[in-house]
Structures are given as C-alpha cells and as structure tokens.
C-alpha cells in the first residue's frame, strides 16, 4: 500500500493540552495525570459562529489549526476528513429531552448543529476551505476508519489531507449507555510525499488485507492505555506514541468488531 507522511499533529484531551505536551507524556518523560479537557477556542472563527459552535466543534477546530500550523499549511488548503463516533452529545440530549416533554419548538441553531458534519461545516466557515470534506463514523473504530478514509483520499487527490478525529461526553442519561468521559480531539496533517526535515513519520496500511483478529499490546502507561480505550478518538494514542518515540514497527488500532487495523509506522528523521 502507498505510504503517507505525517507533517503536523494537534491533540487535546483530558490532561493533554498540546502535541508538545503529549510527546513528553508518550515518551514517558513526564507521568500522565488525568484531568479535564481545557479548550482554547480558535480566534479565526467569525463571532457569530463562535457563539453558535459547541465545545466539541471548538476542540476539533483547535487541533485542526494546530496540525496545519505545525506543518506550515494554510488551513484553507487541505482536503479534510472528520471522524467521530457520535454527534454532539449536548445537542442530542437537549433535543430528545425537549421532544420527550412534548416541546416541539426545537431551536433552529441546535437543529443544524445536530448534524454529524457540523464540525466539517464550521471548519469550512472558519478557514474558507472549499476542498472535499469527508465525515465518517465507525463507533469505537472511528479513528481507524477516519485514517483509512484520509489515506485513500490523499492518494486519490495527491494534495494534503487533514484528518480530525474527535469525540465528546454525553450528559445523563445518554452518558449511562455511552460512557465517554470527556472531550478528546486529534488532528494529523498528512501528505503523499515526504518533505525532508518536516515529515515526522511514515504510515503504511499493512498490505491489501491489513486486518488482525486480536488487539495490539496495551500501552505501557496504564493511565494512557485507559484513556485510549475510554474515548474513541483517543484510539489514536498507540499511533501517536509510536510517532513520539520514533519507533519502527507495527501498530494495531481498534477498528471494527473483532477486526483490528494494522499499520506499519516508521520515523522520517
């Protein structure tokens, strides 16, 4: 399979505010301490959209900008893939609660924000990007599904692709049936050819049947391992660890039921 190259990374999650911080945690230089996810909404979103956009949208935009900045790519340029297990949990809860109380006057803003591609829409509005934008979901395997979509989009278009995977917690009662503890968002700016001194890692889908029936090894830091399993988008952490440590080898990602995705990862410098 054609390899792709990682040139920028943004990450945000509980106890993890940036890629720079994540590198230290993933290399084991600092102990990971779980906390709450702290958002810093991007300045570039127009004021009206800043008012309308939810915290899940803000988190996704934040990591998307960070990955583009690190790669030196204008955010309007790349095609994009947005992967998420669920839509906006707060809005879903609000709409379903109102309907259950026979309040049929749904807020128009809430309704258009309830679509699964709200993040993609706000990304376009904030950056001016008119490139193709895919919006995919595969339950706990949403990060891996997003990566497959991004890789095939990248090889098809041969222009940079921004992959953003994000998930957020639901309020009660949905939290009881889908216990996602907090927001996690990750962005990878991917290119089809390497740029010496700029590309961080090479990722290759492992062959034309890149599936395994068993999961990969647990991460050595048990708290990071817990995080990687607790939030679907955090399923990227084994891959991010491999990139941070400049490891060479195979990574196994959660994908579909009883079907894991195998990647070959190698550092570029």
């Amino acid at each position, binding site marked *: *399979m*054609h390899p792709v190259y990682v040139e920028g990374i943004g990450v945000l999650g509980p106890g993890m505010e940036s890629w720079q911080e994540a590198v230290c945690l993933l290399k084991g230089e600092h102990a990971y301490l779980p906390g709450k996810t702290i958002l810093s909404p991007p300045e570039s979103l127009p004021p009206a959209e800043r008012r*309308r956009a939810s915290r899940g949208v803000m988190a996704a935009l934040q990591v998307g900008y960070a990955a583009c900045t690190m790669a030196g790519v204008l955010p*309007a340029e790349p095609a994009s893939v947005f992967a998420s*297990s669920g*839509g906006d949990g707060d809005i*879903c809860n609000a*709409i*379903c*609660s109102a*309907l*259950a109380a026979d309040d*049929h006057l*749904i*807020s*128009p803003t809430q*309704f*258009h924000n*309830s*679509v*699964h*591609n709200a993040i*993609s*829409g*706000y990304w*376009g*509005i904030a*950056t*001016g*990007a*008119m*490139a*193709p*934008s*895919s*919006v*995919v*979901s*595969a*339950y706990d395997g*949403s990060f891996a*599904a997003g990566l*497959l*979509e991004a*890789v*095939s*989009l990248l*090889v*098809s278009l041969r222009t940079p692709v921004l992959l953003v995977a994000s998930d957020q917690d639901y309020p*009660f*009662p*949905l939290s009881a*049936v*889908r216990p996602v503890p907090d927001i996690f968002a990750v962005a990878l700016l991917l290119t089809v050819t390497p740029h010496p001194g700029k590309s961080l890692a090479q990722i290759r*889908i492992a062959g*034309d*049947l890149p*599936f395994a029936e068993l999961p990969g090894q647990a991460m050595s830091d048990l708290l990071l391992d817990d995080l990687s399993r607790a939030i679907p988008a955090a399923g990227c952490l084994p891959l991010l660890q491999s990139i941070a440590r400049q490891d060479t080898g195979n990574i196994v990602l959660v994908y*579909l*039921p009883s079907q894991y995705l195998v990647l070959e990862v190698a550092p570029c410098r």
Partner: protein
Amino acid sequence: MSILMISGMTATSCIGRGLEQTLAALHGRRSGLAPCAFRDMVVDTWVGEVAGVDDEKIDADLRDFNCRNNRLAQLALSQDGFADAVEAAVSRWGRRRVGVFLGTSTAGMLRTEWAFRHRDAVSGQLPAEFVYAGTHSPYSLTEFVRRKLGLEGPAVAVSSACSSSAKVFASAQRMVDYGLIDAAVVGGVDSLCATTLYGFESLGLLAKEPCRPFSGDRAGISIGEAAAYMLVERMAGPQGREAVWLLGVGESSDAYHMSSPHPQGLGARLAMERALVSAGLGPEHIDYINLHGTGTVANDAAEAIAIANVFGTATPCSSTKGATGHTLGAAGALEAAICVLAIQNDFMPSSPYTGPRDQSLEINYISQNQGGAISTVLSNSFGFGGSNCSLIFGRPI
C-alpha cells in the same frame, strides 16, 4: 479515477418497494407523499412514509439493531435479488475485499426519542431495551447491513446530512483505487423521526403541501424516508454493453453557512465541475441532471445558478423529490438509483408536482417525462454544513 461497474441495485421509498414499483411510479408520475400521519407527530406537512416497515421482523441474533431505520434497511435489502448479487461479488473477490459504505443522517434517532419518553421515573435512566450501539450510533446501520450480508471488508458510516449517501460512492471509489477493496456495497437509509420533522419545521423549511421543486410558488420540502443500495465493482474482464458505470464523483464544501446554501451556488458548481473532471467529460456530455431540488426558495435558486454556470440553460433537469420527498441521508443513493433507471430505460423522469414555472431560474426544468437515448447522467446532493457531492453515471463514451 477508475470507473466502477454497477452490478447490483435496489431502492425502496414511498413510491415503491424495489425497482419495478419505483420505475412504474416514475413512468406514471405518481407521488408517494401524503399528509403527515406518522406515529403521533403533529406537523402540518406532507411526508413520504414507506408502508409496512414495522412489519419487518429482525432476526434474534440481530435484535440489538431493532429500530425503524434498520427495519427499513432490511426491507430494502430483500428486494431485487440484491443480497444474491452481493454474494456473487463475494465469490469473485473474497469476503474481506468487499466494503460497506452507507450514509444516514439520523440512524435510529426515532428509537432514541422513544427511549427518552420512557425514562425510569425515579432514576431517570433510559430503558434497558435501548441499545445505543445498535440503533443510535451512526454506524449502527452499516454494521447491521454488514452482518446481514456477511461481509468482512472495510466498513464505515458516512453522515454528512443530505449528501451522505452520495459521498459513499466517492469513498468506495477511492478505496478501490487505493487497492483495499475490489467491490463495495454503497447506499443510504434514513427514516422518519421527530427530530427531523420538528427540526425542519423550526427552520421554516417544511412545505404545507407536497413539495414543488423549482416551481414559482415552491414553499419548502417534504420529508421522506428511503433505503437504496448499489453494488459497485472494479472492472473484471469484458462487460456487456448494457452495464452502467459510476463514471465520476465531485465533492466540495460551501464554507459559507451551516444551513443556507451559498447564494451563488459556488460550492454546488465546484462539485459538478470536479465530477466532470474526474469523469473526463465536458458539460455537453451530460444528457440529464437529477437535481438536489429540495423545493426551498433558497436551495433551488442557488442550484439553478450553479447549473446555468456549468451547463448553460439547455441540459434537461428535474428533481424527483416531488415523488419521493427529500429522503435526507438516503437521497443521494435513492436518486443515484433513479439516474441508473433513467439510463437503462431511456427516459427522464419529471416531478409529479411542477407548479408554475419560476421564470427567474434559467435552466431547462422538464415538466413532463421525456424519452430518448440517455447515456450519461449527473446527480446532485447537497447538505447542511455546505457539504456537496455530484455523481456521474453512464456508459463509457
């Protein structure tokens, strides 16, 4: 891009179960829309409800997936020998080389709405029978269909509002080109629920009468439900002259507004131009355009400007949403199936309700069905968030 052969197809909507009924309704310009009498919902609008969905019985081993959306998915899957066509593809390529790419905007939201009305009076918990993964998750539809068909290739749900089940064709095509699959089940399923009915009502976008896309007195959309699938495969040996192919795909983002189209149809224009480029065709090669054509004042006006900019004013166009309603996340696949039927049967379907012509929209909107050789067709699907997708079907020129 490589072109993909359509080797299986089926569609179920309010105008019919399977292709034969769908074709007969289109030939007869029959609409399936009726005043909304869905469950206990009180909305002054017309909807395209599929009859008999709730009579479908879900197998015991798939009971976690039991919701109206998946019952509709199953009802449609049993039409037109579609499952047999998929099994034949499995024997050609292998179970792990056939992917599943399905679009939905709301999946089993109706079931979630039910669960919220049946919370425990003391604890507030949702009922134990509510299964998030099998009904609420956007991926629930894809996993249900994947299990029904026994497929083990890559699988994903695409949920980009009303472009969802058009964009699945693009995702599948790219994954074939990339080399991960040789064939794919693509399609979309969306079913009626309170969230979309009351949500579109809150935006003031629901017509009180059957929708009349592109007419001068159009007043909004009619929501429908549908399930439509296609089996697409990479070329394998010489094919008959009758085969219809996915020739091109084009996608774009409006980067303009969450629920209003770009007023000049800029995103729509980009999607159509990219589809033509990917197919290696010029605008003069397109014989018929199946419009997104929802029937709102703003959507149809923006699409007409985009069409006129790319194609001029002569190419015959129509929206079939007056027959089927706007089936949201299923619309791309349903209208793709209608486009393939148009090619196979040499006719362009017009909408049942056309109303007075909107003189300000300078396109060739057909008010009657038209016959004649049709070899290449373009279908538009645009969604909230400015998500646009155009597909080109036909026989290679």
